[in-house]
């Protein structure tokens, strides 16, 4: 069980949205983690500096909250290590060919009403739900 956190999640989601709006306003870029990260996988894209800076901020923020405040960020990864490696590979291949993930398609793309993002988001949300159902209720866990 995890605790239902509507207000905190709504607030966190709004910050994600704010970051997406600011990245467009200042850098003219979609705040999609797949796209930003892909430019940092060798061969590096020429505009790697802002990508690396964004990534450093994204990694640094939770570290700062954890180290500098009394708030504990809940974290629980129930998946066995071998499956994390398999799942990581699958996610990497999927988001590359699918041209985006939850942030790029699910937030920025949907906000622009991009037909490709609408289809991508419906597809991966459905596929994730089916996978969770199969693992938890048909197989009985990994």
């Amino acid at each position, binding site marked *: 069980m*995890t605790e*239902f956190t*509507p207000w*905190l*999640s*709504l607030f*966190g*989601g709004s910050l*994600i*949205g704010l*970051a997406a709006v600011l990245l*467009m306003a*200042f*850098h*003219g*870029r979609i705040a999609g*983690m797949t796209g930003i990260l892909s430019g940092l*996988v060798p061969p590096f894209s020429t505009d790697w*500096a*802002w990508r690396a*800076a964004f*990534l*450093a*901020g*994204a*990694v*640094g*923020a*939770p570290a700062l*909250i954890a180290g500098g405040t009394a708030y504990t960020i809940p*974290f629980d*990864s129930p998946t066995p290590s071998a*499956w*994390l490696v398999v*799942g*990581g*590979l*699958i*996610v*990497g*291949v*999927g*988001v*590359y*060919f*699918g041209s985006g993930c*939850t942030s790029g398609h*699910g*937030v920025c793309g949907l*906000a622009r009403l991009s037909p*490709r993002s609408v*289809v*991508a988001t419906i597809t*991966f949300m459905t*596929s*994730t739900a089916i*996978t969770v*159902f*199969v693992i*938890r209720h048909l197989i009985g866990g990994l």
Partner: protein
Amino acid sequence: MARVLSALVIGLIFGTGIALSGMANPAKVLNFFDFAGTWDPSLGFVMGGALIVTAIGYAFVLKRKAPVFDRLFHLPTRRDLDLPLVVGSAVFGIGWGITGFCPGGAIPALGLGHGDAWLFVGSMIGGIALARIARHTMATRLTTKAA
């Protein structure tokens, strides 16, 4: 310098949002998709909040001629639906359902210092690199055949 600093600050806002919303917590993400079991609807509020702010913000920002640090907005222009988009997204969902990690949630999770997030991200970057090599190989073969 201002450009890089601005990206760092925006990254910090993004990472804070991900951390507070619960998106960096695989157990919570998996529970959102477990309608038949321990359902936690929180993720719907994350997506809802992010979407409303982005849609309203974009409407104002994209009326401007250009972003502050660039000559133009880099907006995807494709509107066609193709097989890689659909199959790739379906494949992504399988990995998301196995692990509870999506790229935007996993990167900030690195900052929490748990080995699980590092293992996932390392493997995911390997997946992106492999996919890129595969696409280039396919593209080269097609070009060679055509020639």
